[in-house]
């Protein structure tokens, strides 16, 4: 195919395209002004929709997403804090239990020592009381013995006086008493 044929063929394509264009314009009503009007009309519509619907709604959805994310983050933090708090509480309880057991053991030990001390004190006191009672008993016995001796002497002297019919002097009485007492013994 030489250059002239190619040129003729390209001219044919151009005329075909022109015919298609005219056909589109006549049959389908394709028109520059109408096309631009529809395009601009749609872009204005899209702009208004963005301004009145998509913009606010997307912002709201984003805000909600952020809030949900923040809420979830907070929840995780609270759960962690709760777990930490539970662990701390458990540790505190364990420590308190340990302390309580230690205190009870100490109290038991203290009580035992105190009891032993009080027992020893009581024993000592009892021994003191017994010693005092014994001393008091001995003193009483001594006193009663002395009184009995004295009474016995007086009775011996009185009896002797009545039997002999003689008034006894104090020296006699003493002598008789001593004799009687030495015979009676202690």
């Amino acid at each position, binding site marked *: 195919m030489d250059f002239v044929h190619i040129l003729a063929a390209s001219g044919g394509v151009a005329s075909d395209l022109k015919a298609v264009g005219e056909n*589109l314009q006549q*049959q*389908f*009503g*394709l*028109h520059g*002004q*109408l*096309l*631009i*009007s*529809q*395009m601009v*009309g*749609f*872009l*204005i*519509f*899209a*702009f*208004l*929709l*963005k301004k*009145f*619907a*998509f913009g*606010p*709604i*997307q912002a*709201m*959805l984003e*805000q*909600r997403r952020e*809030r949900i994310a923040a809420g979830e983050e907070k929840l995780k933090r609270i759960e962690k804090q709760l777990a930490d708090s539970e662990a701390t509480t458990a540790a505190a309880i364990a420590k308190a239990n340990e302390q309580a057991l230690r205190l009870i053991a100490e109290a038991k030990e203290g009580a035992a020592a105190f009891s032993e001390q009080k027992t020893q004190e009581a024993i000592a006191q009892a021994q003191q009381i017994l010693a005092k009672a014994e001393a008091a008993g001995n003193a009483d016995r001594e006193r009663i013995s002395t009184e009995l001796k004295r009474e016995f002497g007086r009775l011996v002297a009185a009896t002797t006086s009545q039997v002999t019919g003689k008034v006894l002097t104090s020296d006699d009485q003493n002598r008789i008493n001593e004799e009687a007492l030495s015979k009676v013994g202690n």
Partner: protein
Amino acid sequence: MRTLATILSVWFLCLASAFGAEGGYHTLPFNAPVVVDLGFFKITNSMIAMWIVAGVIIFFAQLATRKISLIPSGLQNFAETIVEGLEGFLGGIMGTKLARETFWFFGSVFIFIVFANWMGMFPTVGTVGHYDVAADGTKSDLIPWLRGANADLNTTLGLALAFFALWIYWSVKHNGFGGFLSHIFVYQGEGAGFIKILLYVIFFLVGFLEIVSIMIRPLTLTLRLYGNVYAGENLLELMLQMGGQWFGWLAALPFYFLELLVGLIQALVFTLLTAVFTSLMCHHEEEGEHGH
């Protein structure tokens, strides 16, 4: 079950009689008629439909976000469900960061297409209008005041071109101009020696095919959406006519359900494809979210 069978029987009878009827039917014109001509500025019925859809959506959007609160209720709940669902859907394709950056466009595209498609099924759309009377007194066909916005090539091409311009902007923004070109022409994989040189050559040549593929994208997006919506509206109009004056609604009824689905699917397809095209060029920016 019996009720369904009865409805289907009546519908088939009605359809059979419609097919048996003589005469052709009026079909939806390929182009959206101009209803207001100010000379320098023409207004088509699809343009009016687009403004209505846009106005209603923006009105509800403003209503939903007027007293926006952290604990959503009512309309705000509904709007948030749509936005969150779409964001998740796009995030799955493009990665969260890119999806949030480009959401204003893809979200608008999806919402606009789906509601514009569904609006095409409303009563009065395509049926209420005026007649042009010629000088000799002959009346034209009905010129409806409303037409499905996406049943107009100007709208779908406008959407596709808007996407294309933004796609180039996002691609250059994320890769730089050199990165953008190298993404198309340069082999990015591993290799050594002769194989690597061969791969570089092949990828460089394939880059030209890629350029053609990229240039065709707006066209395919345009024609797919236009074709599906136009065909749907045409189908409904034909069914309404074929069912006759009294049973037109019945003949068209199943197709209304079909069109509800088609309207949603086409919106999803357009959004999905545009998101995938963007993701292919920009998603490597999002480390840790999506692999290549």
